[in-house]
């Protein structure tokens, strides 16, 4: 294959991250994720002109749809099709293969469709296989792609696989899944999604820390008293009760999202902001997270389950009353934990994590709480309203940064009080932030794995979570109820109180 000449027309265009010609194959095309996230993300990419001209989507699932049915589903993503002609014209090229993943003929038909598209549309043999389907079929689909000769790229082309969460349900199952994928694909073909990494503000943690000279010098045990990471949801399990019963908050949120946020917050400065640079440092800090013994689990981890209550002005049922949940379920909907990172930067600085459903509001944030001043020169009565400094990275909603510091209250006396200085991304930039899935889909097509999870990260995160899951299998392991609409059970408060600290109110 002869080397292609460069395209001088591309220079200076917005699409430095433009995807090359390719076909996106979606396993699970009739499912919830495709309808709610993937198709809307594609539509936005199309509107931003970031998709290649030679591009197609092939959906694969059991539901007996024709190409036209799938195109109609894709068309529903936009309210007014006439107003979005680029989308309407793009989806005319979408194809659909109906079939069971266990049936080899599904993959034979898929291969024919892909070859046709290469010939008609010039997609050049480039493929991204997106496993947006139930985790149980990840391995069989990968095997079938290998068996039908679709796992290896042709000369000059690429083949990549995007894998949705959950990646295993503990360390052994994650390792087994990896072994299976590695039989067919190289690690550099695998793109494991954690959609939190696609969020602009999560990436902004890196910008804040490593593009500014004023934060990094205080980002350590000398100045930071402790760190609080909160991932709160106001919603309950909704219709996904059946799924949730097999997961719980630790698997659903802590093992992936919280660990990702933690590693970006605590990692050492990478030498380069590229896939290897960042992922090497993330794994390094995860390796420094202390792994609990069974006794330490009971002392440092709280698990809770929501009871009835009121959230956002509406009455909420108890978890055990939700659709698909048994009256004696022991699945946790809340986790609070105190983790230690044993390295030079963070020794002795507790990282408090909490996540839960049916908390008072939906919010994700990282708060760095700084040490108090060594000596307060004000009479005690005048500094009562003064708290320690805090730097809060608000990840969602209302993305931005808040700095809490002391200021003098106007008046004759030297009274000081804490005030907040707020920066909001929404009010400072013209560009609309891309949605997480939009960013990640584009990265996968463009071949940038920086915001995807490498195998060693997944495994290390499971090493941290496995002992907790293990300890919870004991019959007498406590599961404390909390009122819907509260910030979790009192035991979560005590986790900090006993050390003279308190949770922030995000």
């Amino acid at each position, binding site marked *: *294959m002869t080397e*292609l*000449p460069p*395209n*001088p*027309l*591309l*220079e*200076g*265009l*917005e*699409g*430095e*991250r*433009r995807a*090359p*010609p390719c076909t996106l194959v979606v396993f699970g095309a009739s499912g919830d994720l495709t309808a709610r996230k993937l198709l809307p993300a594609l539509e*936005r990419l199309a*509107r*931003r*002109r*970031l998709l*290649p*001209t*030679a591009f197609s989507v092939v959906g694969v699932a059991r539901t007996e749809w024709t190409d036209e049915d799938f195109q109609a589903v894709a068309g529903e993503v936009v309210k007014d099709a006439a*107003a*979005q*002609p*680029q989308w309407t*014209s*793009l989806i005319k090229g979408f194809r659909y293969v109906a079939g069971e993943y266990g049936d080899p003929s599904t993959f034979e038909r898929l291969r024919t469709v892909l070859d046709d598209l290469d*010939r*008609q*549309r*010039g*997609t*050049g043999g480039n493929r991204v296989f997106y496993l947006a389907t139930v985790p149980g079929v990840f391995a069989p689909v990968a095997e079938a792609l290998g068996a039908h000769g679709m796992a290896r790229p042709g000369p*000059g082309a690429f083949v990549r696989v995007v894998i949705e969460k959950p990646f295993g349900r503990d360390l052994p199952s994650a390792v087994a899944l990896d072994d299976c994928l590695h039989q067919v694909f190289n690690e550099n073909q695998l793109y494991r999604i954690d959609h939190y990494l696609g969020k602009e503000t999560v990436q902004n943690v890196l910008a804040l820390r490593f593009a500014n000279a004023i934060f990094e010098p205080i980002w350590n045990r000398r100045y930071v008293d402790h760190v609080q990471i909160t991932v709160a949801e106001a919603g309950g399990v909704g219709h996904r009760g059946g799924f949730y019963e097999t997961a719980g908050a630790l698997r659903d949120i802590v093992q992936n999202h919280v660990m990702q946020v933690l590693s970006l917050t605590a990692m050492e400065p990478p030498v380069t902001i590229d896939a290897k640079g960042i992922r090497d440092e993330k794994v390094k800090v995860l390796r420094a997270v202390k792994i609990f013994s069974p006794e330490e689990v009971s002392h440092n981890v709280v698990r809770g389950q929501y009871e009835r209550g009121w959230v956002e002005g509406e009455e909420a049922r108890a978890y055990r009353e939700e659709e698909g949940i048994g009256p004696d379920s022991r699945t946790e909907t809340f986790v609070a934990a105190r983790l230690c990172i044993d390295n030079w930067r963070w020794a002795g600085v507790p990282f408090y994590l909490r996540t839960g459903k049916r908390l008072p509001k939906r919010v994700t944030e990282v708060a760095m709480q700084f040490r108090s001043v060594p000596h307060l020169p004000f009479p005690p009565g005048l500094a009562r309203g003064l708290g320690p400094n805090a730097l809060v990275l608000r990840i969602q909603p*209302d993305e931005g940064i808040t700095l809490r510091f002391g200021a003098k209250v106007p008046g004759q006396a030297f009274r000081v009080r804490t005030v*907040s200085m*707020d*920066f*909001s991304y*929404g*009010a*400072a*930039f*013209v*560009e*609309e932030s*891309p949605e997480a899935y939009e960013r990640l889909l584009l990265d996968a097509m463009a071949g940038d794995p920086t915001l995807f999870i490498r195998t060693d990260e997944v495994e290390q995160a499971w090493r941290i979570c496995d002992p907790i899951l293990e300890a919870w299998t004991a019959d007498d392991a406590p599961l404390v109820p909390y009122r819907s609409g509260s910030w979790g059970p009192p035991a979560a408060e005590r986790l900090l109180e006993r050390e003279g600290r308190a949770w922030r109110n995000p």
Partner: protein
Amino acid sequence: MAQPVAAQGATGAISLLSVWSDESVKVGEVLAALDELRRPEPMPPTRTSVLTLVIVAKQRAEAARAQAAVHELGGRHPARVLTLLFDGDRGGASGLDAELRLLGGEAEGHQVWFEEIELQVRGQASMHLDSLIEPFTLPDLPVVCWFVTELPDPEDPLLAAADVLVVDARQFGEAACFATLLTLARRQPVVDLSWARLMPWRSLLAGLFEGPDFRPFVTCVVRSEVWGRTGPCRLLGGWLADRLDLPLSAFELSAAPHVGLRLHARSPSGQAATFEVIRGDGRLVSARAAIAGGPESEAVLQLPEATPAWGLPEALSRLEHDRLYERALRRAVEL
């Protein structure tokens, strides 16, 4: 950098919070009034501004169009806006009339507000507009001067007060104008709204050459038809001439209400292909690549609404020298 999504995320409404105006005033009085203007307003938590925008116009109607564009961006692009109006008559007595407006709006649920300062400059003072800019600029932020009536003379002292110039090549067309633009653009960053609005054409055309089938043709374009109004047509032609290193003899430029282009390529083995980007009557632009006897690819794109702000947000998000634009200008001068 991704393009802002045009159809969605439009701005919230901008509302007028308060106004002050007076005739024959001094700058100090205007500044004092500006301070007073804000005082009674309940203080929103943040006041984020990203630039000082100076609109330079002869006629109020022209200035109003530019102001409307800024309002349209509204909360998305908080800026202090200074409008300098001056009539042609520079001989009479110097004087200033001023009007101040405090505007408020919303960006993604955040309140933002900004001030609009309009100065009518009379007499000799209109030859020293630069002295009226400095007192009103916000610290540390770029000063962007938008010339809505005519291109400034490259020797105009006003240019020294500006970090970035905004112009619209659609208003011009003569080769002489392109020469002036080129002189200006070599000295300081010039943001050309026409150039910003041509982005979809450039992007669609570039996309047509992606992929192993189409890419080889990018080095063997033999003929290039470009049409449209003089300004944008020449800019697009200049860009093609520069990027594809085409001789002037390969170009056929013609006048048309909308801009468009068609490239004819022939590979060394004699295979022919055409690449075209055409805007129809509506706001739809379609792109098509076809290799004789080979694959074809197509894309269409809906242009954002033709409001006064079309191209402005894209243009304002890059306040730096644009080498490609300057190179396109250089070739446009020759075309």
